[in-house]
């Protein structure tokens, strides 16, 4: 199997959901009344997307999980402040994103103070390699390329990396990303495109892919 065959859905833009899900509204209403089971259902439905949002900010699964836990507790406490129950998803994702950013800032300050390296450059990518029937050399080259790509993406400026990874999660529309990052939609699209262009250019300078 070649790299081209390893297709992963990217930049899937979900359709706009103008009509609130009645089940979602019912669960939010129950959770407001103190129903833990209903709140658990809400978290369960949004947990994978929340973890992806947190991962886009902090990079490490353990940090992302802690950020999601903090965000869940905060959402439980502030549920009365949610005006529109149908807007629970966006409201919860914003809490997750802010908690993850707080965590990233604290980790960054700790690393800069004691470790001498930034959190952006630390850690290794946790990539999942599917089973392949390709030759050992091809698999090795593919893994080297993936490691190089992950390294380049991690080294991107945050203003480019954040929208690029949020879009790569496939959970959010451009409007959602713009709301999370508090920037215009046009800026989101440009930054995603710029992140891809910079990544490709760096990889080509490193000897991967096509050379101009």
């Amino acid at each position, binding site marked *: 199997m070649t790299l081209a065959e390893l297709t992963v859905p990217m*930049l899937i833009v979900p359709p706009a959901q103008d009509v609130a899900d009645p089940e979602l509204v019912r669960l939010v209403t129950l959770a407001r009344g103190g129903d833990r089971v209903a709140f658990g259902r809400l978290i369960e439905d949004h947990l994978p997307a929340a973890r992806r949002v947190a991962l886009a900010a902090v990079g490490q699964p353990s940090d992302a999980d802690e950020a999601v836990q903090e965000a869940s507790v905060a959402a*439980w406490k502030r549920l009365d402040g949610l005006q529109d129950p149908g807007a629970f998803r966006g409201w919860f994702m914003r809490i997750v994103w802010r908690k993850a950013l707080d965590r990233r800032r604290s980790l960054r300050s700790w690393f800069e103070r004691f470790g001498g390296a930034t959190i952006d450059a630390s850690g290794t*990518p946790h990539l999942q390699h599917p089973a392949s029937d390709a030759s050992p050399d091809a698999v090795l080259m593919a893994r080297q390329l993936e490691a190089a790509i992950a390294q380049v993406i991690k080294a991107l400026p945050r203003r480019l990396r954040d929208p690029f990874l949020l879009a790569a*999660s496939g959970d959010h529309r451009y409007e959602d990303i713009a709301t999370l990052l508090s920037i215009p939609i046009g800026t989101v699209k440009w930054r995603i495109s710029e992140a891809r262009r910079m990544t*490709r250019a760096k990889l080509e300078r490193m000897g991967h892919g096509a050379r101009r």
Partner: protein
Amino acid sequence: MIDSSRHELDEAIDRVAAQMVAAPGDDRMLQQVLAQLPERPASPWFLAKPVQLTAAAALVLFAFIYARAEREAAPIELRQAAVDAPVPSQPPRPRPHTTQAVTADSRLATPVSRLSSAMDRTDHERSLVPIDVIEPMELGAIAAPALELDAPASLEPLVLTDLSLATKGES
């Protein structure tokens, strides 16, 4: 050839980016989250919507009544003075925003002009009571003493013949 290679590179970038944020569902984590949820504090009664609306309405009503009572309790003199105050018949003329106007304003805003505006401009001459009849002065009563006092003094010349040249006991 270059396009296909670049296409593969783009696909690889997208795939790696998606894997970097891949996070499947985790039942264990869900249980941890639910176990950490604290008891939700019951909403205080004063945060309920009807209570907030009622309090806001009561506040507005109180402010209205208070303002009305203040207006009625004002002294009669002040109210009369306010009624008698001259009302400008014409609205202030619009001031031109030209360079000359700004220069004129700056000229008027000198310390001397500010001092003159603060000075008392009461017209004391016009505020005197007018004199209806002019009465003549009686000069006869004061004529006699005035003449005696003002009479010129006449001095007689000193006669020296009466004086003896030799005194008794001297020769």
